[in-house]
């Protein structure tokens, strides 16, 4: 097929060399066979992408169908002598916008599929009928009005003055300069709007900051302004179940977590007495010279390992 076409082209070229060239006719864009084939491949694919987007239950599948449709449209732009728009379509639409869609789909929840409940009765049927009617009207009118139209084509524009991209750039910066500047304002406003709308505002029920906590404490809004006391650390025991002793010798109930059963009171009798001042204080010369009477009244005897250091669980729970 293509070989035949090439042969015909070569024959036409030879004929043109032999005969004098005809006078230049008004430019008419002839649609080639290749373009026809491309249209009949890409057009149904684009349409299938659109239909798949409508009928897919999963939103992610809808997005992927739409990607197919947009890719086909980008290739159709290439075919239609608009290479710049084709590239922009593929980069901006399928590259940026659809990825943004997929990002938001992943954020919002992949399983956020449609509800089957119809709020308005028969809305889907009516929508489909309206769509069919609209399609019939537009297709019929376009088919009646524009069937025998011939395209002038963009061959002259696309081959001179920097090609398609150069011509579009020249038009953008001369004829369409003001709208082009307006798009910059639009993009800035859109970026700021997205930031404002997407900002995670503090909602009631979230954690207060440290500054707010300190202010509330000093204002007396909490039960106590200071943190809770730690557990007692003594020579006989340093477990978290040991309550700290207050200056008067009584155990501080807040020093032990509510989840822990407090230590047996009897094992703390010596420490209580020491803190209350009933016993003589520690001897500064204890390490200098051994004294026989120091160990007798400086608290309970040194604990046997495993007996007094930690309370036995059975004893505590009893």
């Amino acid at each position: 097929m293509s070989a035949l076409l090439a042969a015909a082209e070569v024959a036409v070229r030879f004929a043109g060399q032999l005969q004098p060239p005809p006078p230049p006719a008004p430019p008419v864009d002839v649609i080639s066979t290749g373009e026809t084939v491309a249209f009949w491949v890409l057009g149904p694919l684009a349409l299938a992408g659109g239909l798949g987007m409508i009928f897919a239950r999963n939103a992610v599948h809808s997005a992927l169908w739409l990607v197919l449709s947009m890719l086909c449209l980008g290739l159709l732009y290439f075919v239609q002598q608009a290479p710049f728009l084709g590239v922009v379509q593929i980069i901006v639409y399928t590259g940026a916008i659809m990825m943004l869609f997929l990002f938001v789909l992943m954020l919002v929840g992949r399983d956020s599929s449609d509800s089957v409940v119809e709020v308005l009765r028969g809305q889907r049927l009516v929508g489909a009928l309206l769509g069919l009617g609209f399609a019939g009207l537009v297709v019929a009118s376009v088919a009646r009005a524009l069937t025998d139209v011939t395209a002038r084509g963009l061959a002259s524009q696309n081959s001179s003055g920097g090609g398609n991209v150069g011509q579009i750039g020249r038009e953008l910066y001369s004829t369409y300069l003001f709208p082009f500047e307006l798009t910059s304002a639009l993009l800035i406003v859109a970026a700021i709007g997205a930031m404002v709308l997407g900002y995670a505002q503090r909602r009631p029920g979230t954690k207060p900051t440290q500054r707010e906590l300190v202010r509330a404490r000093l204002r007396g809004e909490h039960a106590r302004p200071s943190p809770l006391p730690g557990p007692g650390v003594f020579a006989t025991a340093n477990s978290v179940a040991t309550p700290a002793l207050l200056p008067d010798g009584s155990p501080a109930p807040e020093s032990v977590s509510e989840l822990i059963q407090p230590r047996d009171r009897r094992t703390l009798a010596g420490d209580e007495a020491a803190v209350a001042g009933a016993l003589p204080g520690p001897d500064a010369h204890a390490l200098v010279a051994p004294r026989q009477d120091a160990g007798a009244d400086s608290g309970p005897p040194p604990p046997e390992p495993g007996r007094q250091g930690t309370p036995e669980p059975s004893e505590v729970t009893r």
Partner: protein
Amino acid sequence: MTPSYYLLLSALLFTVGAVGVLVRRNAIVVFMCIELMLNAVNLTLVTFSRINGDLHGQIMAFFVMVVAAAEVVVGLAIILSIFKTRRSASVDDSNLLKY
């Protein structure tokens, strides 16, 4: 084949997008249908640019793309903020302004 085939294709694509807007409930899918409609209009603009033999239609399609990008950014941010407060992306659930 004439260039009007492209116009017919774009009319069909526009219809598909419009029906999708009417039929679907998920706000994000509705948004994608709007994108499809914009793409169909772009195809029309490119085809008319080719028929008329000048580039103004392509420039118009370029502007449509810019506006569509901005619209997508703002619209998706709105959908996200609605989802954050209402835990739903369905267009049926945003009915506070109804009554």
